[in-house]
């Protein structure tokens, strides 16, 4: 009896708190964390952040001035103004003041733009928007072949890296709010931007142009690392895949070949040379699976392989829902082992 009462009370309280609990994190997440232009971690994002605050403060001051003036003439001093004063107000407040303010803001705003496309200092990334994932090539200074990765952007801190953007079929938009402004990606046309991360850390990027059914699930991880760490990481990415370390992984590698996964995915150092989907040479060491959609845990590998379309609507990869549980688990072991 009393237990029932307590349960009822408890349910009641849950119901009451549900709405604010849902809204609060959404509001807070907008201001800080992995994906916010208001928590800058790079020089480009900081410039944009400054621009935002200058504009916001300016807009608030102007709003107060205009409304103050309006309040003054309608509530405090309701007598007619002299024609001379009124004329002066129109010329100064309506022509000179806006011209000066807008001119200053425009000059400030335009002066920022070239920095967004400043040339890089060695490393060039080539990012191609696919439906719905990111093909990433790293071209270190003087390289004649790229180091291929996917769905993860790593950049050295304290150095400006150039990013060349392209798209396969539809328009996407490349945006890492914590590091800089966004830039559209067009099929058949290269667009360029550059980023200079300052703080090491992990952020999230997101496609910012509607690009089809799974647009909202087209995200990526961004990691800014000190130069030495970055160089070591890149060297590891350049290496061919490690051979399977366990019996399960070895069986998984055979299943990978048996099911023809290599038709779409490349695993460097093996027969798999496909280029339709992401390069999987080091997929086990990536931070996410399915372009920021799942984690790279064994369970998530299995979920992804068997439920592609349910997890990501209209995705090109077919669902391998006919694999046996053992096959699936072996395959997941193999993929997780590709570090």
């Amino acid at each position: 009896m009393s237990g029932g009462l307590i349960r009822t009370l408890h349910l009641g309280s849950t119901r009451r708190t549900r709405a604010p609990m849902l809204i609060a994190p959404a509001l807070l997440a907008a201001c800080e964390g992995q994906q916010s232009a208001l928590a800058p971690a790079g020089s480009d994002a900081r410039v944009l952040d400054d621009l935002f605050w200058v504009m916001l403060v300016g807009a608030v001051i102007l709003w107060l001035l205009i409304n103050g003036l309006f309040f003054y003439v309608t509530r405090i001093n309701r007598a007619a103004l002299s024609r001379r004063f009124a004329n002066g107000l129109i010329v100064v407040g309506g022509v000179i003041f806006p011209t000066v303010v807008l001119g200053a803001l425009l000059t400030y705003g335009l002066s920022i733009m070239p920095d967004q496309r400043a040339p890089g200092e060695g490393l060039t990334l080539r990012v191609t928007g696919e439906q719905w994932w990111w093909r990433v090539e790293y071209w270190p200074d003087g390289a004649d072949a790229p180091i291929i990765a996917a769905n993860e952007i790593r950049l050295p801190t304290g150095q400006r890296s150039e990013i060349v953007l392209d798209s396969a079929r539809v328009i996407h938009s490349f945006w890492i709010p914590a590091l800089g402004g966004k830039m559209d990606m067009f099929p058949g046309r290269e667009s360029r931007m550059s980023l200079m991360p300052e703080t090491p850390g992990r952020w999230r990027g997101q496609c910012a142009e509607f690009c089809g059914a799974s647009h909202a699930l087209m995200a990526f991880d961004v990691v800014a690392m000190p130069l030495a760490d970055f160089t070591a990481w890149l060297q590891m990415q350049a290496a061919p895949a490690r051979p399977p370390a366990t019996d399960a992984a070895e069986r998984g590698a055979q299943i990978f070949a048996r099911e023809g996964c290599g038709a779409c995915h490349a695993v460097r150092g093996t027969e798999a040379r496909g280029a339709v989907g992401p390069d999987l040479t080091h997929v086990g060491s990536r931070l996410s699976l399915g372009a920021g959609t799942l984690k790279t845990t064994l369970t998530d590998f299995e979920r992804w392989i068997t439920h592609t379309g349910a997890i990501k609507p209209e995705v090109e990869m077919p669902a391998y829902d006919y694999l046996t549980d053992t096959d699936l688990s072996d395959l997941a072991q193999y993929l997780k082992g590709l570090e």
Partner: protein
Amino acid sequence: MKRVLHTLAVLAVLGLVAGGAVVGLGLYNVSARVGHMPGVSWVMHTTFRNSVRLRASRPKDMPDLSDAALIELGARHYDTACRTCHAAPGEARSATMAAMEPAPPHIETAVQDWQAHHLHWIVANGVKMTGMPAWPAPRDDDVWPVVAFLLAVQDGMTETDYTALTQLPEADAPMAYCLGCHGDGGTNHVPPLNHQSAAYLQASLHAYRSGTRASGIMAQAASGVSPQALDELAHWFARQTPAEPVAAPQMPVQLIAQGRALAHAATGDGDVPACAACHGPNARDASELFPVLSGLPAPYLEQQLLLWRDATRGGGRQAQLMLKATQNLSDTDIFALVAYYATLRTNRSDADE
């Protein structure tokens, strides 16, 4: 006005009662012996002819209907599926068939006055209330071999021609029937079977039987034997030694090269999965459920790829892989892939490259 409405209502009720009595009390005589009342046959037959003329449209592209291999395939299908009712050229209909109401016309009469697209429509759709069935598959491009045969009948095919066309090779019972079309390395429209794995053949035969892989001709063939017999057939064909490689068809060298690049994912763009990963050549580690494509006849390969792209083709549980894989193929891609695979020599182990 009110009186008119009253009368109409009474008439309607009487009509309903009369109709109900015919259906409910069995007043209508369905005896085929008695036949139709005068004029009814004429009305129904005229309706049939006009309905076909209205609905059969001339297709944009027809295969070459004078192709001997197409006529032979059509004749062999006709022999098992249609001959029972319509008889063969030079042969009399059985007495039982002639007693049907309406009696199926002898094939030599049936094909008169129709053009290719009319015949295609009739074979694909069947005719209601006559006993003429629809094509037993949800696609109708594979109706053309039958049309090619029917046009040959229209042109005066003799009994001797027909017997020569439909003769079965020397072999045991179920195999002889299969070998009629698939023997001797197949034809342009029929693939040879003896370089595929038993697993693939088995899956395909069951898919034909259950309808997940659509083909009017193969549905008829696969429904003629028991599921166990299908498994035995699959293993029997897989055991046969591959036919001596015939001379590769002539294909433009550039097209072959384009096909090779596509099949091995060497084009540099990521639109088409590498066919070779599953279908070879040299896909030794790939599942036995994936068919070997090397050396298959070009028209057959082209037709299958088009069916896949149009999502008309199915198969076993792996069919979903091919449905995804073929979505981005252009017509040129298909021609190039066909040129590449048709010119590779046939070999089950694919050690030919």
